């Protein structure tokens, strides 16, 4: 096995778009299964009544991280060929702070508002158009933002680089962190929502 298949030329660009469609279908399917087509379910995360945003995200991160780690350890996946988003530390932290306000106010994130819109949620449709307007505002103001947007570039910079730890040990620590997080999430839910009912 020579993975990633696309990077090793097993298929071309047109076929990759078909792959994109199928991967998107899987992504959307599990987002809806998780309850992420509902803004109430998503927002419950921030009132401690249903912590599924945290749980789903971290299980997904751990699953994909371990899968990529094991496949590369077995020599089946060339890890260096998988794109890692470049780090621009300060604009990414600031962008995250802005994004968090939009999340609580709007109720969705960019992927989940598509699922909400597709399953009939009008607020999801409106959120989607709001997001497009926001991106347009960003684009029109880009000449003023560009300096900040491109500041603190750090390239492909990963947690093992930052912590000066071996890759495998970092993976193990992330798994431990996630397990501790799940235990804490279960306790918080019992405390803030003892009946386990959907808040609405």
């Amino acid at each position, binding site marked *: 096995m020579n*993975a990633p298949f696309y990077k090793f030329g097993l298929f071309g660009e047109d076929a990759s778009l078909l792959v994109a469609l199928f*991967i998107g279908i899987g992504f959307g*399917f599990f987002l809806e299964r998780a309850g992420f087509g509902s803004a*109430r379910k998503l*927002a419950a995360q921030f009132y401690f009544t249903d912590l599924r945003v945290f749980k789903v995200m971290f299980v997904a991160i751990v*699953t994909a991280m371990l899968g990529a780690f094991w496949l590369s350890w077995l020599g089946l996946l060339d890890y260096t060929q998988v794109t890692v988003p470049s780090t621009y530390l300060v604009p990414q932290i600031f962008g995250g702070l802005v994004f968090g306000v939009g999340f609580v106010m709007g*109720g969705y994130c*960019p992927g989940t508002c598509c699922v909400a819109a597709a399953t009939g949620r009008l607020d999801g449709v409106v959120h989607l158009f709001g997001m497009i307007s926001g*991106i347009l505002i*960003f684009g029109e103001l880009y000449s003023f933002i560009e300096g900040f947007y491109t500041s603190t570039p750090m390239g492909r910079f990963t947690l093992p680089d930052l912590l000066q730890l071996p890759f495998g040990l970092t993976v193990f620590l992330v798994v431990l962190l996630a397990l501790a997080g799940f235990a804490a999430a279960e306790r918080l839910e019992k405390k803030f929502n003892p009946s386990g009912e959907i808040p609405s």
Partner: protein
Amino acid sequence: MSEPFATDHGVIVSDRAEPRPYMSPYLAGVGLGLVLLAAYVVMGRGLGASGAFTSFVAAGVETVAPAHARSNAFYTEYLGDPGTNPLKNWLVFEIIGVAIGGLISGMLAGRVRKEVEKGPRISVNKRLLFAFVGGGIMGIGSKLARGCTSGQALTGGAMLSVGSWAFMIAVFASAYAVAYFFRRQWL
């Protein structure tokens, strides 16, 4: 699955009446993680969402004002070479799939319905205004951070990117910090 059936009281009900409960978050997380892993293995890249909408915006601006779009480095990154179609793009096809996949799951579970998601203490109009403004703020934030919960938190997070983890921590910190002020919308 829409076959009506009789209860023991003789009342005809349809299993469509009650939406089915959501999947266990741990199980759904494994499913999502395997989709992300498939993207790594097959494509050598991860998932995304805000990038697809940026392609839509850049293509729209180019249609209305071609010279204006071409003079902006942010738009040209999403427009590609002149003459190519900016919508013939991996993330654009992926986001179409996301809508289809969400619709399939929602239909199978009887959860597709016209509704506005909100708490009981806010009017529909106010909720929709919040959704629009919140969506706009989120759009700007996702561009500053070069990605959203899909492209940064999930994709970069599982690849252990420092910027993605910093983004994710910032999102949760800020959302918890302001949640109190939006409680009337949800609780």
